[in-house]
């Protein structure tokens, strides 16, 4: 099984599309960092306008944490695009290439093959997020230094330096869960067709439609909102509240987890029964 996953990763990292996400995240992060490096003081001042009187702020607010938080907010909505680019191709790519015939006539079960694909997909999500964390948090801390985190959400909160890192860990862990859900949706579509374009477009369409639906202030739509996985994907924000609402986080985590397991089970069932005609 480990061999199979390693093979999947090898194949993945020999494909160009795999690097699109990595390069995109790299570029965007660096751009944000550069902009803030030169104009950051104004930016923070603007955020703080009118507050100076009520707070006495000790320390540097334009620090690595602040930048990491900002980049996370800016990029997290775009990461699904990068994830499905790889996920949509994971199975359909084998069909397009005709390589199913080569791998499924070897002494490995279809269950193993599909499972290794899912694991590889999950690892890609983790790699992508780790890369984002490394650049946006790691590099920013080195360049901009540490300090208390100014967090602008429902209100303005300032977290002390020793009260921050775990919030990022939580947020990233939760993001991994959300993005894995997105990844798995694209793999489901990918198992049904012989071309990667369809799954990529369909997955994005679902996410966009769900997001639009939940934004429309109609009673009926607001009532189904809690049942849409996209609603739960933004739960990572919760870690940057003064009072982290663990109940909501658990609840959303469960819902996403059920999605993940369900998507895996359905795809596996279909894939094991399917006639390989490519």
């Amino acid at each position: 099984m480990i061999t199979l996953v390693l093979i999947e990763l090898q194949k993945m990292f020999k494909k160009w599309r795999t690097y699109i996400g990595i390069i995109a995240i790299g570029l965007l992060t660096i751009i944000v960092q550069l902009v803030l490096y030169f104009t950051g003081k104004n930016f923070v001042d603007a955020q703080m306008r009118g507050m100076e009187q009520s707070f006495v702020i000790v320390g540097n607010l334009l620090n690595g944490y602040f930048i990491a938080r900002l980049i996370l907010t800016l990029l997290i909505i775009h990461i699904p695009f990068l994830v499905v680019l790889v996920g949509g191709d994971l199975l359909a790519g084998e069909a397009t290439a005709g390589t199913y015939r080569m791998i499924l006539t070897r002494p490995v079960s279809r269950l193993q093959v599909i499972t290794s694909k899912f694991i590889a997909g999950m690892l890609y999500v983790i790699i992508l997020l780790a890369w984002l964390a490394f650049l946006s948090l790691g590099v920013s801390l080195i360049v901009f230094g540490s300090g208390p985190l100014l967090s602008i959400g429902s209100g303005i909160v300032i977290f002390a330096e020793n009260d921050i890192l775990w919030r990022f860990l939580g947020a990233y862990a939760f993001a991994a869960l959300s993005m894995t859900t997105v990844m798995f949706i694209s793999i489901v579509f990918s198992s049904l067709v012989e071309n990667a374009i369809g799954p990529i477009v369909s997955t994005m369409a679902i996410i966009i439609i769900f997001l639009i639906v939940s934004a429309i202030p109609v009673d009926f739509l607001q009532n189904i909102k809690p049942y849409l996985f996209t609603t739960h994907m933004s739960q990572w924000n919760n870690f940057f509240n003064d009072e982290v609402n663990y109940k909501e986080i658990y609840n959303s985590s469960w819902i996403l987890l059920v999605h993940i397991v369900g998507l895996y089970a359905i795809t596996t069932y279909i894939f094991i029964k399917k006639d390989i005609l490519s």
Partner: protein
Amino acid sequence: MNSEQVIEVRGLTKKFGNLIAVNNLDLNVYRGDVFGFLGPNGAGKSTTIRMLLSLIKPTSGEMKIFGRSISKDRKEIFSKIGAIVEKPDFYLYLSAYKNLEILGKLSGTDISTKKLMSMLELVGLDKRYKSKVKTFSHGMKQRLGIAQALLHDPELIILDEPTTGLDPQGMKEIRDLIIYLSREKGKTIFLSSHILHEVELISTRMIIINRGTTQVEGTVDELLKTDKIKVTFEIDKIEDALRLVNESSWQNNFKSTSKNEINFELTKNEIAELNKYLIEKGFSVSAIIPVRSLEDFFLKITDGGAK
């Protein structure tokens, strides 16, 4: 010869909607056979092979390989099979070497660099081992296909039209390789083809299918070698020759005539005798063209199959 049955298929049927691609097919392949699986385009060869390798599910029928059911003992069976199904496809963005390495690992054996290179050498691709498969010609992919089928030293080798797209030299190399694998290595080979001549050259037993059903089955010797052969004699003074034939015992072998040709049905020995007889009587025979009845038959169904 050992008579252990390697492939046993009973009543195999596959329907695609209304189309019956394979219809109630029986197959018996024994250890050591080079089994020719002949049929025109669309006869159902690849569909049968896909079912044998459990890529697709039969609509009905029973299959056993090495005496076992594929659904139960999949891993053990597949570790002893090497196969090409339809045209050989690889990861185009990986090198020939990397493709083989991956497929080797999937076969459950970590194959040494030396072994991989010797496989590539066997099919004449050792100089291009670093090249991405994307840059390969169809024939080169076909060769790589052979290499991946032999990688894990399988007992049963299933080849779906392995010589399509190869140049004459390449075809001969593959034929020689198959003969070598069968005779020297004792492999069992299941070879699908639409070329009678190819099967005749290397197979021990064969079956001809068309529209998914068996047309002819037997050993190649039975079917081809001891067969009465249709022979065309090209001859001068055709009218005199015809008269002579009709007055002799050769009239029993006479079939038809046209222009400067007379067609007979003869065994191999009789061809030589008749030739001698005609020359002694002062005729000059400019050509003797054999047309085997099986070939005739195959051409007929090939015609039908192309429709």
